[in-house]
């Protein structure tokens, strides 16, 4: 089957089995390798992308269900929220091995869109689907608070 998917603002025609996870279409077919394979069963969140603005695990999203939705990957997030999150990540030196961080950033951006000033427990709730084996969780939490503060116009 040929599917037309909207990824990062442009339309791509992709020939694939309908059950092919969006993850592998992004990585193997479109060459967008910022989105990572970590577990393949929606346990770790390394493959998180935005589908119509909502965070989704692309390993568990068959291409046939994407339809006309707009898919955004780590390569193309560039609104003020995303910028604030990524700047906070760098300022705190959040990443260690860094492999999960695309997914962490995608989840963090989605969280701040839904909740501009999340509490610690809001962050725990929203981010518990993203595993980091290097356990950078405390810095992630701090960086999300920093980004939220920046977006509120406060100095970090």
């Amino acid at each position: 089957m040929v599917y037309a998917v909207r990824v990062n603002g442009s339309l791509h025609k992709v020939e694939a089995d309908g059950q092919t996870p969006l993850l592998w279409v992004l990585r193997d077919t479109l060459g967008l390798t910022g989105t990572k394979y970590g577990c393949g069963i929606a346990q770790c969140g390394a493959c998180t992308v935005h589908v119509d603005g909502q965070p989704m695990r692309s390993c568990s999203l068959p291409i046939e269900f994407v339809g006309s939705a707009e898919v955004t990957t780590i390569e193309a997030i560039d609104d003020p929220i995303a910028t604030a999150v990524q700047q906070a990540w760098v300022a705190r030196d959040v990443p260690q091995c860094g492999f999960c961080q695309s997914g962490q950033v995608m989840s963090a951006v989605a969280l701040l869109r839904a909740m501009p000033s999340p509490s610690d427990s809001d962050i725990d709730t929203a981010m518990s689907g993203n595993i980091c084996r290097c356990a950078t969780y405390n810095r992630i939490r701090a960086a999300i608070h920093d980004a939220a503060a920046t977006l509120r116009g406060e100095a970090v």
Partner: protein
Amino acid sequence: MTEDAQDSRGFRLTRRRLILGGTLLGGALLVGYGVARPMDVAGAILSGGGTDPEESPFGAFIRIDLEGWVTVVNKQQELGQGIHAGMAAMIAEELDADWDRVKVVEARSNFRAYGVQITAGSNAIATNWDAMRNAGAAARSMFVNAAALRWDVEPDAIEVRDGVVSHPASQQSASFAELLVEASRQTPPQVPVLKTAEQYRLIGTDRVRRKDSQPKSNGSLIYTQDVQRPNMLVAMVAHSPRFGGRLARFDDSDALKVPGVVEVFAIDTGVAVLAETTYAAKLGRDALRLEWDDTEAETRSTADLVAYYHDIAAGNGGIGSADFATMGEDPDAPLTGDMVEFSFDFPYLAHAPMETMDCVAEVNGFDVSISSGAHLASLDQVMAAFTARTIPGRVDLEVLPAGGSFGRRGVMTADYLVECVRIAQRVQGRPVKLMWTREDEMRAGFYRPMSHHRVWVEMGADGFPARWRFHSVCQALTPVGDNIQATEGITHSPYFSTARTVAGKIFSPRFPVPVGFWRSVGASHTALVMEHVIDQLARRAGQDPAAYRRSLFEKAGDDRRIAVLDELMEKSGWSTPIEAGWSRGMAISEAFGTIVGQVAEVRLEGGRPVVRRVVAVVDCGIAVAPDQITAQMEGSIGFGLSAALFGAVTLKDGYVQETNFDTYPVVRMNEMPAVETHIIKSTNRPTGMGEPGVPPIAPAVANAILALTGTPTTALPFLSGAAATNAGFSMRG
């Protein structure tokens, strides 16, 4: 199989013989020559198979360009521990470079250029401490000499700071860029003068920060998983579901019908499916029909193995033992009087790094080109050469940053990398990306070995141990040699300071479950043994565990541990009361020369340990990159806590039961305690930080639980089965 494939196999066999003959002859010659000129030969056969690195007048590790950028060539592998920053800081400090204009690039594997490239045992800072500082200092003196010549002044009167060379007396100054041409003509000094610790401006400050946070926050960093090469095939391999099982028969007729599947063939580790995309390879592999010969396979269950280990420790296992930690007169005499016995069981643990095992390789005759997050690069290069029947010098190994490893990519047989080369060899001339799924990785072994420790202590009248005896059972990590890793952390324990005798016996059973190095290695289990025993002995003696430790450390003259203990007591508020329902537990352990103490604040919620805060103190000698020491402490505590709370790989009839994060839970954000790290100021040579933060967390939690309930811990993990997945949501309390 098509006829083409058969033809090419026939051809390959002939060529293989040719290669074989050539390798043998070459090998024999090299061995002969090697005895005469060992380093020359090692250099020749281990150098990169591609081009050697560009020549730099400042040596292999430093390049400086006309814009004043200093590029540090990092010979160690970056797998999250931030080693690139430490390596660069050691150079930049002595070079007096501008840290903001220092870049780091990863070195390819090349013995001739960089020496041995092994990133293991938390050794990178420790083993490169002299070489990197010397390289920086030598380059600095070249700039100083160049400036002295240009300005006609004494070199001693010249200062260098942040990449600027100056002569204050004549108020002249020039940047590295301006002096580059002249400096590169200077002869580097034989013995560069190094700074003393008090003169450091960069090392030990918060200016030393990692340089890869940006590409790691925007998805642009390329890991092995992300490597794309023209014409590349993706390979997946169906492995034996049991350890030691061998492929008996396979049928690829359905697999070859999957669109995108290109080729299927058997290799020594199973059946390889090659396809144009990862998903096609996966579907193709799922469509294989496989039969396994399990005559030599491990078919026992975890409960059988635990019982077997207990039999061995009781002397009924039918296997011999080796002595360790033996001291005193007649240590094997029976223990008498006031004797206490302890028993501990530890499970197999998977590393489960976020990036599963993967490797990209292309073989063209004698030439092999590999991209992989290889952390034993020098060894991996040799293993790849053996596999492809060529010499290591024809193997070009691009070392990529790894998405974690924790020891998994440091398997000495380079299992996944060898598998990839073997496949690439069959498809000559086409790059192959080997992809393991999470399930492949969890089932493939090289686990932290399971172990059983039996400890007997004869107490002296003063309430301190008078005699110790250990029976430890643990598979060996190396094929030959004493099984020293299994007892490291016990062998030289400072707690033996009051003992008349110590007698240790290590039993090393051999069976087909492969074991490997797992972050902090032996200390990952022995720390619980020693630290939890000490807490129980302290309670028996009616003493505060911290005071009890202090007495033992004083008797041992262990000033470093005393300093760690004092700092830990102060920063954790050890002597102050804690809220009802909470308690503190302490542990202090040493790994790879670094001493780490931790105090965990714990309560029990329906039987589940909840850890809200950990105060950590570390003595790792001179702290080169404090922010990365802090990061490693946080990460090690999260990693160690994952294992302590839930970590266990179990077997049922030889089949691995935990295959992904749903059955092998790890600490998630809601379970991560707050971590406070304090670094002991030291002028000693630096020691490692990648692993030593892991061991103390399990005993710290066990000791806190002991303080809360009086119940000792006899096995890890604290939680298993449904209890493990039942992460409550108020974990941090």
